[in-house]
Structure formats: structure tokens, C-alpha cells
């Protein structure tokens, strides 16, 4: 098992290196002078400019810049933003709310999607199944921010059940609606995946054998349909955590949440390169670690997978 964990960790290194390289290349090959942007209309003193360039390694060749960034990142130092604040500080401020939001969304989509998907799969063709299928299709087809605004309007403004925006002093209860919105699309995918998987498993040979030995329908579903059906769903959920972190860009802007998505979005708009690269790197890390976790979970769910 530890061999396997070690091997998988080693495999993630080229992925992380490659991903940061691509983002670094995209951001830093962008023409234009990042320093000039800092000073706006004011003329820039050449000496000051050179000093700032040296501070941000902008005077060095691209590859060297990237390597220096990596060197810092390994020790948890992502450098300073152009406003002078350490990027790590910005991230530390923004990260907790986003990861809370993403995990809440993950929990919501997982519970609702698996429960609804299982019922739909067991009663394929029934009323519940049809309703859920239509619901999931509508959720996938309508852009998520439309749902965001409508739900915000209904629950936040009209009914007043929740505060329409979150703001700086966030709390878990304030995040429920945004998390629901964020998890909505993935809920539809989890539902569809679970439904198909359950329906497929119901017709397998080993389920027939389980029935033949006299198990009640409840036991058959619990022991022989559900667990087998969850394997593809778990894989999806693992990959999805990364997507949720990125999807937070939209949700956070609707509900005014001071998270990583907002941070990244504003940084991109302002050309705050160090922040952009750092945030994307962290998201890649989250994705990579989540998929490692899923692989381990997968092996726990499915004894056929060897740790090799």
C-alpha cells in the first residue's frame, strides 16, 4: 500500500510541474508591462522600475523565473503580489471560505445525487425517475449563474430566509445557498451517473445469485447493488472537487464571497501575475490530491485493484 501511495505521489510531480509551467508561460508571456500598470498614469522612475523588476525576478529569463517560483512554492513562499503583500497571505485569507464552500457543495451533490439517483435507478421508467431526469437535464442546460440569481432573488430577497450576499464575515449557514448553487450542476451528473450505474448493476449475474440465495430485496440493494454502483460515482466526485474550486469563481461573484475564485478573477483582470499563478497552482494541487485520495478510496471499495 505505501509503495502505491509513494508511486502515485511521484506520478503527480510531473503533472504539477507541467501545469504550473503552462500557467506560468501563459501569464508571463503576456505582452505589456506589469510594472507600468502598477503606477497607472504616473511616470515611472527607471531606477525604481529596475528595482521592482529585480524584486519580482522580471529581469531574469523566463525559465529562471519559473524555477525560482517553484523553489519558493516548495517552501510555501509564493512571493509578493505587485501591491507588496505576500501572496501566501492573500491565499490564506481567501482559501478557507472557498474550500468550505466546495466541500459543502460536494456533500450536497453527493447526498442528493446518490439518494435520488439510486431511487431513480431502482424504479427506472417510473414517475420519480422521469421527474429527476428532466430536472437534471434542465440543471445542466441552464447556465449556473441564472440559477444563482433566481435562487438569490427568491430565498434571499423575496422570502428573506437567507442573506442574499455573504460578504467578509462568512459563516457556514450563510454559505448553504451558495453551496447548493455551486453543487447544482454536479448534482445532475451524480444523479445521472448513479442512476445508470444502479440500473446496470441490477441486471448483473451476481445480483441474480444474491436473490437466488434468498436475500430480501432490501439486502440485495444494500449489499450488492449500491456498493458496486458507487465506484464510478466516487471517481467522479474526486475529480469534481477541483472543478468546484474553479466553479467558485461564478458563485463567489454572485454572492459576493471573498474566496479564492474572487481572488483569482480579480488578479487575472488586474494582471497580478504572481497571484494568478499561485492560485492556479493551489487549485491544481487540490485536484491532484483529491484524485490521489479517490484512487485510495477506490482500492478500498474495490478489492480487485492491486496497489501496484
Amino acid at each position, binding site marked *: 500500500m505505501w509503495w502505491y501511495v509513494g508511486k502515485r505521489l511521484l506520478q503527480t510531480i510531473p503533472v504539477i510541474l507541467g501545469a504550473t509551467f*503552462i500557467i506560468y508561460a501563459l*501569464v508571463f508571456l503576456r505582452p505589456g508591462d506589469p510594472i507600468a500598470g502598477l503606477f497607472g498614469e504616473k511616470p515611472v522612475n527607471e531606477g525604481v522600475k529596475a528595482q521592482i523588476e529585480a524584486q519580482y525576478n522580471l529581469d531574469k529569463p523566463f525559465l529562471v523565473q519559473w524555477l525560482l517560483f517553484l523553489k519558493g512554492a516548495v517552501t510555501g513562499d509564493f512571493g509578493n503580489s505587485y501591491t507588496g503583500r505576500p501572496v501566501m497571505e492573500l491565499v490564506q485569507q481567501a482559501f478557507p471560505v472557498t474550500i468550505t464552500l466546495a466541500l459543502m457543495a460536494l456533500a450536497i451533490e453527493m447526498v442528493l445525487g446518490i439518494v435520488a439517483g439510486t431511487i431513480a435507478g431502482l424504479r427506472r421508467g417510473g414517475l420519480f425517475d422521469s421527474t429527476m431526469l428532466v430536472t437534471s*437535464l434542465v440543471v445542466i442546460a441552464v*447556465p449556473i449563474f441564472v440559477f444563482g*440569481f433566481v435562487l438569490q432573488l427568491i430565498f434571499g430577497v423575496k422570502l428573506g430566509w437567507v442573506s442574499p450576499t455573504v460578504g467578509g464575515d462568512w459563516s457556514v449557514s450563510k454559505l448553504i445557498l451558495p453551496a447548493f448553487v455551486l453543487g447544482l450542476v454536479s448534482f445532475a451528473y451524480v444523479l445521472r451517473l448513479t442512476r445508470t450505474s444502479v440500473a446496470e448493476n441490477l441486471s448483473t449475474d451476481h445480483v441474480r445469485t444474491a436473490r437466488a440465495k434468498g436475500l430480501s430485496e432490501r439486502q440485495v440493494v444494500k449489499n450488492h447493488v449500491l456498493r458496486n454502483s458507487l465506484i464510478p460515482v466516487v471517481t467522479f466526485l474526486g475529480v469534481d472537487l477541483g472543478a468546484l474550486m474553479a466553479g467558485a469563481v*461564478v458563485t463567489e461573484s454572485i454572492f459576493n464571497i471573498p474566496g479564492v475564485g474572487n481572488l*483569482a478573477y480579480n488578479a487575472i483582470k488586474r494582471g497580478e501575475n504572481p497571484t494568478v499563478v499561485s*492560485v*492556479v497552482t493551489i487549485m491544481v494541487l487540490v*485536484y491532484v490530491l483529491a484524485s490521489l485520495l479517490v484512487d485510495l478510496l477506490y482500492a478500498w471499495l474495490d478489492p480487485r485493484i492491486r496497489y501496484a
Partner: protein
Amino acid sequence: MPEIATRPGQQRFVAPLDETPLQDVDSVDLSAAPESQWKEAWKRMRKSPLFWISGTLLLVVAIVVAFPGLFTNADPSYENLSDSLAPAREGHPLGFTQQGGDVWARTLYGARASVAVGVFATLFVTIVGVITGAMAGFFGGWVDSVISRLSDIFFSIPLLLAAIVVISIINNVWPERQFWGSVFVVVGALALFAWPQITRQMRGAVLTVKNLEFVDAATAIGASRWKNLVRHIVPNAMAPVIVTATITLGVFIVAEATLSFLGLGLPRSSVVSWGNDIAAAQVLVRSGQHLEVMFVPATALAITVLAFILLGDAVREAFDPKARKK
């Protein structure tokens, strides 16, 4: 057998031959017309209500994309602030946007950009994905390693963020783009990080097909590796990719709208698109007024996306090996 007493119900029984006529061993059934797998799938698809619903919707969308002028006389890009949020009137059945544009006309003309993004991004992703996936699965070894690692890397960067970065960069370099320029920037930004999904799927399919016996049979005939790949393996690995591509098309259309919401989709100045109009109406929704200004383009977009997803489902069912006759 005298020593075994035959029990009731177990006496020797021979069915009368006229009730159980003997047929030739393994005779060929020539009653039905010959049909290929594709034709067979098409036949099954024709029976599916899913296919007819999605097909009809897509036909309507296609007509609107090709001839939006058939349904309105208004100019979609003409905006007059004195008409801001004005109610419907003669020639303008659904009223006006906040900027004073005709909602109905803008929705009709907006189809073109949204569908173009979906179609071209899907084409790009499918072509790249099929080629790389087929190469990785077929050649294995270092080719597979390189392609798989590359797709891992591109897959690990969140699509939406990556697209935002790419578009914001291009906005800096090339701010003044016309219709197609704008469309292809969005297409490129989405496709650049979305191809690994198709690559992985194609690679898996090729790995399965390549071990089937008819591939060995073709090799034994003397068919070259290349011919084997192009003539036998790729065509047999395509079905799942086609299904994914159809669904992905819908997802790309939604993604374009999301990018527009973030102000990084198709530029509002030069392109009329659903995403732009939905995004522009967000201010109205926040205040709870004139929701229809958002709902009209949003419904158009949702119906189009739904049609593609339903088509994907119909195709999947038609190709489902379990539904296929033996």
C-alpha cells in the same frame, strides 16, 4: 429399462414431429433486409421519442441560425436608450433590453454565436482527442506516456480558470476583433484545456478494440499497422466518443454564457450572443425587475443545450450493445 419403475409424469415422451418441426442446422435468416451497425442504430434511433424531440428542436435551432431574418424585421444591434426596458409593441413582440435593444431579435440573432462556439469547440476537441487518444492507445510505449502525461497536465488545470486566463490575455493583445475572431478566441480558450477528456475516452476504447480478434486477423492477412488503425480500430472505437462529443457541445454553449457573465466571453460591442444578453440582464434580476429580459435568451440557450444532450442520450441508447440484437 425394466428395473427402473417409471414414475408418474416421467414416462417416455416424444413430441409429435408436426408440432416441433425440425429446422436446418444454422440456416441463414434472410427475412430482414441487411443493415450495418450504423444503419441498425439509426433504425433504433428513429423509434426513440428522445431522438425526435431533440431532432426537431435542433432543426428549429439550425433554421434560426441560418436565417434569423425570417422571424423578425428588427435589427438586433440597434439600441436606443429611450426604449430601455420598454414593453412589447408592434414588431417587437418581447419588448426591449435595458440598453434598448429588441429582445426577440437579439435572441434570434444570438443563436449564431452561441451555436458556433459549441460546434467549433467540439469539432476541435474531438479531432485532437481522437487523434491523440488513438495514437496513445495504439502505439503504447513512450507515445502513450507522453500523450497521457500531457493530457493529465491539461486536465489538472480547471477549465474555467484556464479559459479566463487565456481570454484575458488575448483581450490585451487583440482587443478589436470581429465576429469570427471573437468566436474563435472563445473556442480556442475552451478547447485548449478540454481535449483530454476525449483523448482518455478514445485511448480506452482503442485499447479494448485493439485486442479483438479481427485486428489480429487483419494483421495475418498482411494489412499494415497503419491500415489496421485507420480501417478497423478507429471506426470501431468511435461510438462512445460521438456520444460524449454531442453532450460536450451543449456544455460548451453553457460555458460560453458563463464566460460572458464574467465579462470574458464574446465582446458585447461586436457580437450579439445569448451569453451576453443573459449576463447584461443580471443587474435587472438582482433588483427583481423585468426578469423576462434574462429569461428569453436563457430559455433559448437552455432549449438548445437540452436538445444536444437529449440527442447524445438518444445516440447512446441506439449504440448500447445490450439493446442490440444478437
